[in-house]
């Protein structure tokens, strides 16, 4: 079970992927990553292996391809001409592991800074080997060839205005840097640089036990921390072959959908501030604060909840939760209605957002864009429907689709998805099963406190789980959930110990951001700002 679907020879990589894409319709490249087997208990002839994860056009089948890389050359053919998504994915693998992708158009670091030496995710790189950066790079090494490829000679290039949007800019919503060449107000070329919030999530995972990683997942997409908790815990539970209780599944659905609502609120509110409408922000943020009160009452934290546990949840719902939840939902409904009443029939809003920042279906799939951004382009892909988990198939809800893939569609899809999430929450609350929230599994979940203090078995159990961690069977596994931004996947390699050998997060907005420069080229500068806000880039997620 915990094995890749195919192990192929690196020389056959392009051929295999092309066959899969053209013949078997595996049209979505989800992720590329590498594994360094230097310290793996089972010795292998090759130090590095590459992992490619693809999904087919029906969105039901996933295939994981593994290929071992030659130790001396560390070179593999690039797939960037087959999938647009491979461009940044390969850059990241080069940055973190030093694998060279032959014929890649722009193989340079993407997360770490340009003065960085070495490759941090290699097993012989110490986690605390700090490398300060003295100066920010100019990015002209990317901009000049890009302009040349668009037919600008040196003199014409001088006449363009080069401008940095970010890394510290209100429109960048975090730490994205876009380096743009403008002709008047029209963007002629755009280079995106990320990594300003790279916090070493994957390296940290390799140095902590499985349970200790849960707080790190909070801080991936911090607008909907619980959805990340769920995605991670679900992956580990599947590796353990553990089925959590129905009540825990329902609570995960309820709290997860509430997080999705909060995430969409933040995105839409910020988007409309960028459009110049601050009133919407006050309207829908007051509902968000109500939701945070509920979450802090339930989980103890407003933003970074760490609510799930491997095998269940931290707490059960408190008395009176249903009433509080209904109040929050009513406030959200009111917030949506109030905000929409300002923009729904507003001519300025329509003119600003319609046919702006258009993402076509074909490009979205090639670039690996998932979630609302893909659905707004009209592609019916929602993991909750395509591969239902946690009883999602038993709830009555609609997948919200757009028709143009523009900013307007993305904003409206988010509003409507909030309504659909509320439908799910209300159905789940109505049918919430009683019973335990945690499975009975002493090797996964901590014992009750009275056992820890009352008998030696409980004490030993607590001690072993805390110090050694949960023992996950050896192997590698990919699993995904529908997070607020799209397909949030975790690819985990276990060596059988209590600490993961490798955790790779497939961040949905990493791929959306990789495509951003292509989307805004040719648009106006002011439109690029709202396009960025509408695509919901969360720095903690794409930089990790």
């Amino acid at each position: 079970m915990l094995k890749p679907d195919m192990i192929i020879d690196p020389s056959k990589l392009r051929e295999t992927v092309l066959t899969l894409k053209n013949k078997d319709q595996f049209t979505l490249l989800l992720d590329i990553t590498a594994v360094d087997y230097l310290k793996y208990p089972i010795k292998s002839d090759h130090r590095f292996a590459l992992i490619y994860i693809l999904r087919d056009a029906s969105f039901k089948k996933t295939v994981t391809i593994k290929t071992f890389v030659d130790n001396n050359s560390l070179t593999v053919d690039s797939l960037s001409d087959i999938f647009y998504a491979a461009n940044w994915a390969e850059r990241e693998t080069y940055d973190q592991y030093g694998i060279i992708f032959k014929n890649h158009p722009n193989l340079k670091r993407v997360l770490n800074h340009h003065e960085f030496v070495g490759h941090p995710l290699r097993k012989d790189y110490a986690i605390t080997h700090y490398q300060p950066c003295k100066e920010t790079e100019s990015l002209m090494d990317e901009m000049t060839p890009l302009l040349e490829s668009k037919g600008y000679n040196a003199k014409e290039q001088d006449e363009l205005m080069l401008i940095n949007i970010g890394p510290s800019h209100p429109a960048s919503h975090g730490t994205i840097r876009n380096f743009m060449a403008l002709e008047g107000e029209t963007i002629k070329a755009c280079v995106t640089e990320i990594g300003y919030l790279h916090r070493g999530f994957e390296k940290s995972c390799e140095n902590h036990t499985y349970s200790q990683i849960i707080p790190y997942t909070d801080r991936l997409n911090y607008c909907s921390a619980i959805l990340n908790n769920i995605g991670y815990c679900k992956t580990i539970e599947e590796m353990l072959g553990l089925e959590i209780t129905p009540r825990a599944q329902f609570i995960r659905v309820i709290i997860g959908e509430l997080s999705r609502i909060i995430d969409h609120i933040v995105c839409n509110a910020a988007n409309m501030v960028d459009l110049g409408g601050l009133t919407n922000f006050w309207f829908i943020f007051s509902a968000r604060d109500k939701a945070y009160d509920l979450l802090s009452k339930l989980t103890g934290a407003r933003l970074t909840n760490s609510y799930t546990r491997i095998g269940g949840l931290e707490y059960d719902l408190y008395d009176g939760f249903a009433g509080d939840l209904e109040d929050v939902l009513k406030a959200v409904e009111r917030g949506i209605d109030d905000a929409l009443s300002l923009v729904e029939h507003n001519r300025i809003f329509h003119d600003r957002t319609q046919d702006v920042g258009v993402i076509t279906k074909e490009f979205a799939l090639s670039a690996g864009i998932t979630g609302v951004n893909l659905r707004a382009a009209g592609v019916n892909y929602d993991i909750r429907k395509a591969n239902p988990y946690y009883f999602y198939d038993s709830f009555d809800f609609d997948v919200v689709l757009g028709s143009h893939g523009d900013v307007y569609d993305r904003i409206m899809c988010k509003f409507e998805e909030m309504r659909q999430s509320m439908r799910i929450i209300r159905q789940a609350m109505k049918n919430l099963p009683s019973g335990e929230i945690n499975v009975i599994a002493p090797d996964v979940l901590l014992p009750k406190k009275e056992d820890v203090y009352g008998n030696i078995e409980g004490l030993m159990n607590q001690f072993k789980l805390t110090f050694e961690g949960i023992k996950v069977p050896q192997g590698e596994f990919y699993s995904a959930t529908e997070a607020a931004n799209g397909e949030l996947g975790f690819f985990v390699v276990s060596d059988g110990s209590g600490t993961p050998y490798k955790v790779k997060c497939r961040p949905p907005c990493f791929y959306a951001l990789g495509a951003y420069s292509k989307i805004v080229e040719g648009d106006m500068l002011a439109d690029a700002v709202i396009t960025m806000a509408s695509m919901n880039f969360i720095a903690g997620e794409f930089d990790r």
Partner: protein
Amino acid sequence: MGLGAEAIFGDSVVTTKLDKAVNWARSYSMWPMVFGTACCGIEFMSVAAARYDLSRFGAEVVRFSPRQADLMIVAGTISFKQAPVLKKIYDQMCEPKWVISMGACACSGGFYDNYTTVQGIDTIIPVDEYIAGCPPRPEAVLDAIMRIQEKSQDESIIKDRLKNFKGYLDA
């Protein structure tokens, strides 16, 4: 009964020191420059929104242009890649200026003790107030702003502020 001008003009005037008047005005009109990078930046949005209402403290005019701001709030993790940017923006702010380090990451690197994270922004720029928490609650941010308001009472317009700080980016 007052002395000096107040003895002559009664309640219609108040005599004070120029420093005191300037400090009073300044402390109740802090213009924050939010260097929001991560989760704490999202919590700062809550601080500014209706529930916690930063404008009660006169600090609601959030500027993203450092030259117009006098209070820098570093909200979020600072990576080594970000550090030169933070330094540059801090240098662009005019004196007098204050810095709040919001959250565990900005204060000490938090639980990101790894190759990419700066272990506390006070290795780059001087910090006046630290806020604990991951992320801190909005009340804690308001508390720090009130402490900055207190600190700003000691300023003087004729004396230069002490500048003996040296971070790792100061050559």
